[in-house]
């Protein structure tokens, strides 16, 4: 749930700032209200699909052998 602090902020402002501030808030809310949204079920499916498609390229997830991971290699090459 989104809880807007707008009313709290407004009450702290005084004088003519009130009007400018209120206009900005309405402007901002209009921008936010105008965006297109998708359902959480669709968003979740997309996140899951991305994870699934990229899992095999994720060394920390799949665990790559020590010989292929420069950090796991206990004997780093010394170039003489």
């Amino acid at each position: 749930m989104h809880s807007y602090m707008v009313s709290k902020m407004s009450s702290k402002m005084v004088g003519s700032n009130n009007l400018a501030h209120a206009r900005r808030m309405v402007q901002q809310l209009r921008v936010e209200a105008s965006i297109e949204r998708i359902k959480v079920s669709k968003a979740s499916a997309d996140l899951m699909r991305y994870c699934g498609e990229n899992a095999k390229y994720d060394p920390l997830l799949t665990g790559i052998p020590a010989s292929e991971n420069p950090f796991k290699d206990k004997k780093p090459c010394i170039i003489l």
Partner: protein
Amino acid sequence: MLCKKNQGETTNTLKAESESLKAKLEEERAKLHDVELHQVAEKIDALGQFVMKTRRTLKGHGNKVLCMDWCRDKRRIVSSSQDGKVIVWDAYTTNKEHAVTMPCTWVMACAYAPSGCAVACGGLDNKCSVYPLSLDKNENLAAKKKSVAMHTNYLSSCSFTNSDMQILTSSGDGTCALWDVESGQLLQSFHGHSADVLSLDLAPSETGNTFVSGGCDKKANVWDMRSGQNVQSFETHESDINNVKYYPSGDAFATGSDDATCRLYDLRADREVAIYSKDSIIFGASSVDFSLSGRLLFAGYNDYTINVWDVLKGTRVAILFGHENRVSTVRVSPDGTAFCSGSWDNTLRIWA
């Protein structure tokens, strides 16, 4: 000039419109909340046991490590500390390649340039400065320093955009700003937070010119870099947001907060879709980063631990111990083979 009566009426009309817009937003968001992410994720396999260990320990800072960043070459690292030192390391060998002493303490932000030829840093000096890295180890890096950004309060975070030419900054002065490195010119400023901004992250380049910021007003804001417009705002955390990081696809971002939780916000659903928390975790999360596929979230905490979360199922898959003080920064390497953590125990650790 409006008389007081007219001013009062207009303000009231605007307030009424604000309230009605807010209610409409809540309604629209609620309509689309048909399921929880972790419920959809029930059908996929759980992750197995993770064994991650410290593979390197980078010692050399004389005080708390506050920030670090990886070079695109996947082996170099820049780190910055409370003692004013900025160090460039070769993480494979643990050798220090460069060191710069800043004129201020608490260097809270540092970043590697995409070319690998420079680093940016700043903190209590309220500035972001760029240091070209010299191949000549004897050269005094401080001599070539370029001051780029000027804020009216501390610099909390900085990041190069896709080139060495522009830097994005966030500050304790409540703003973010985009700067031209060569001229130091302010290209765009971003106003909307009502308190210190603590962190920012650029969207992965494929998803366009946006970035996300988080701060002490508990809000995470998404911005259009060209227009300066705040396009989306999320406010569900109960305390300061210390760190924000995009999910690798750019469709979501994660946050770490002093309220001891990390959260995931989906940009297209326009809402929070996951909370990563446990009753036993009571200390703030200072830093978060995703593994390459986005399935794992690494989070550093003020209780000295790093928790590894299954992003989709919402469960914790590992706790990593080792640091002897707060973990202040956590970053996965560019090729995903390891991640680096920095701590108030003055060290950095590479885990794999």
